[in-house]
C-alpha cells in the first residue's frame, strides 16, 4: 500500500527525457499544468493526451509503473469526481432522494478525473526521469532571483532533495513499526474515527522519534563532510542547456500555441 507511492522516485533509464536539463522539464511541466486547467475543451484534452503520450513514450518509463503511482491518489480522485458528479447543476439524468446526477455533472466529473490523472502523470514523468538532486539543482537555479528577496533558495532546495531521499526509507520504517505493533496486538483498522486516531499513537510516536534521530544523524554526517550551506560550493553536474533543450522549449511552446489555437478556433 504505502510502497506504491512513486512520486519523487527516480526511475533510471537512458532516454532523451532523462538527459534534458531539469529546468527545461520544470518549464514544460508548468506549461502543461497551466494548459490542463485553462483549456477545457475536448479538443484541448485530446491535444494534451497526445502530448503526454509522446512524453511517456520517450521517457522509457513503463506506463504500468506510472499508473501504479496513481493508486495513492485514488481517494482524492473519487472525492473530486463525486463532488463534480452530484453538485453540478444541469439537465438531470438520474434522481434519488436528495441526490441528482446531471448530464453536465457527468461530463465535468469525467473531465476533472482525466485532468487530475494527467496532472499526476505529467509531474511524475519529471520526477521519474530526474534525480532528486538534479531536480533541486534545477529549482535552485530557476528560482535564484528569489534570493534577492531573502528567500534561502539553496537551503530550500537541499531540504527538498533530502526529503525525497528519505521518503522511501520512512515508508519502509512505517511498515516495520506497524508490523511490530500488530505483533503486540495493536489494531489499526477497526473502530470509529476517534478510536482509529488514538490507535495511531503507537505508530506515530516511534515514527517521529526515528525521523528525528535520522535527521540528527544526517545533519552530523553532512557537517562531517564539510557541508556549510551553498556558499563556495561547486557542482559535480553543473546544469548546462544543450541543443535538445532548445528543441524541447520550442516543442512545448508549439504545444501551448496549439492549445491557444484550439481554444480560439473551435
Amino acid at each position, binding site marked *: 500500500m504505502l510502497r506504491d507511492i512513486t512520486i519523487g522516485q*527516480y526511475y*533510471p533509464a537512458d532516454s532523451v527525457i532523462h538527459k534534458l536539463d531539469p529546468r527545461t522539464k520544470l518549464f514544460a511541466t508548468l506549461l502543461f499544468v497551466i494548459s490542463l486547467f485553462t483549456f477545457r475543451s475536448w479538443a484541448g484534452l485530446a491535444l494534451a493526451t497526445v502530448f503526454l503520450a509522446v512524453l511517456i513514450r520517450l521517457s522509457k518509463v513503463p506506463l504500468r509503473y506510472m499508473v501504479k503511482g496513481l493508486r495513492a491518489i485514488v481517494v482524492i480522485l473519487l472525492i473530486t469526481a463525486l463532488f463534480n458528479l452530484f453538485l453540478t447543476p444541469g439537465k438531470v439524468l438520474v434522481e434519488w432522494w436528495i441526490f441528482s446526477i446531471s448530464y453536465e455533472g457527468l461530463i465535468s466529473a469525467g473531465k476533472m478525473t482525466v485532468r487530475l490523472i494527467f496532472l499526476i502523470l505529467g509531474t511524475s514523468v519529471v520526477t521519474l526521469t530526474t*534525480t*532528486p*538532486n538534479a531536480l533541486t539543482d534545477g529549482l535552485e537555479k530557476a528560482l535564484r532571483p528569489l534570493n534577492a528577496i531573502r528567500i534561502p533558495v539553496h537551503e530550500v532546495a537541499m531540504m527538498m*532533495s*533530502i526529503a*525525497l*531521499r528519505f521518503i*522511501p*526509507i520512512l515508508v519502509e520504517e512505517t511498515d516495520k513499526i506497524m508490523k511490530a505493533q500488530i505483533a503486540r496486538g495493536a489494531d489499526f483498522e477497526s473502530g470509529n474515527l476517534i478510536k482509529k486516531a488514538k490507535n495511531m499513537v503507537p505508530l506515530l510516536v516511534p515514527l517521529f522519534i526515528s525521523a528525528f*534521530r*535520522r535527521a540528527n*544523524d*544526517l545533519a*552530523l*554526517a*553532512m*557537517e*562531517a*563532510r*564539510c*557541508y*556549510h550551506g551553498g556558499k*563556495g*560550493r*561547486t*557542482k*559535480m*553536474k*553543473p546544469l548546462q542547456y544543450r541543443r535538445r533543450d532548445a528543441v524541447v522549449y520550442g516543442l512545448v511552446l508549439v504545444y501551448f500555441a496549439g492549445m491557444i489555437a484550439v481554444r480560439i478556433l473551435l
Partner: protein
Amino acid sequence: MNFIEARRLVHEYIRRDEEGNVESIQTALDHVDLDIEPGKFVAVLGHNGSGKSTFAKHLNVLLTPTEGTLWVDGKDAADEENLWEIRKNAGMVFQNPDNQIIASVVEEDVGFGPENIGVPTPEILKRVDQSLKSVGMSEYRTHSPNKLSGGQKQRVAIAGVMAMEPKCIVLDEPTAMLDPNGRREVLSAVQRLNEEKGVTIILITHYMEEVVDADQVFVMDQGKVVMEGTPREIFSQVETLKQYRLDVPQITLLADELRKAGLAVPKGILTRQELVDVLCRLY
C-alpha cells in the same frame, strides 16, 4: 609527528533544565591522552557508553573539547579557523548506513563532499571515479542507494569520504548494523585503503575479530583510555577485557582456556593458524 595527539582531553555533556540551570553533568571523556601515528590502522574498543563515540566526534570537530587539547594533523581542534581543514583531512563514517547517504544516486552522494569544499567539476568527476573504484563499487555508480545491501551502502559512505582525499578516516562502529558478509566487505575495503593508499584508519568497534589485524588498539572505559597496545598484548589479558564488558575472539578464548587447563599455550594467540601450530608442537 603524530597525526592525532590528545592531551588531557575532557568532554562533558551538560544537561540543562528549562531555565538554563545545570541539571546534570556527564563526563564522557575523562583526561584522555592518546597518540596516533600517520598511516596506522588503529582500533578503539569499548562497550556502549564508554566514550569511544564521543572521542571519534572530536577527531572531526563535530564536538570540541571541554578541557585539554587535541591536535589533528598538527592543527589545534579548538581553533575555529582549522575547522574545515580538519574535517577535510579526517573523514568520518558513521554507524547507520541509511542516515549518512545524502543523495539518491550513488555517484551524486560520493560527489557531495568534494562539492562542499569547492573542488572544480572535472576534478570531482575524477575523484568520484577513483573513490568508487577503491571500494569496489564502480558498477553501482548510477544506482539508487536504497536498493543496495548494508555493506554496499557503507562502502559508498567510505567512497564519499575518500573523494575528499583525507589523510585519515574515522569509522564509528561502521559494521554494527551489518550481517557477517557486509562486515567482511567493509573491513576489507578499509584495510585496502590503509595498505594501498596509506590512509590512517581509526576503527571504532566492539567486534573483537575486526581488531586482530590492527597496528594498535586502545580500550576505553568510562571516558578513559584503560588499555593500549598491539592486538596480541591486549588480547592476552582476557580477564581484564571482560571487566570492561568486552570479550576476545573465540580462538583466543579457547587458547586461554587450554592454557589454564595446564597446556603450554602462550598468551595472546590471535589466529587459528597460530593455535594449530602451537598445539601440533605439543603433540
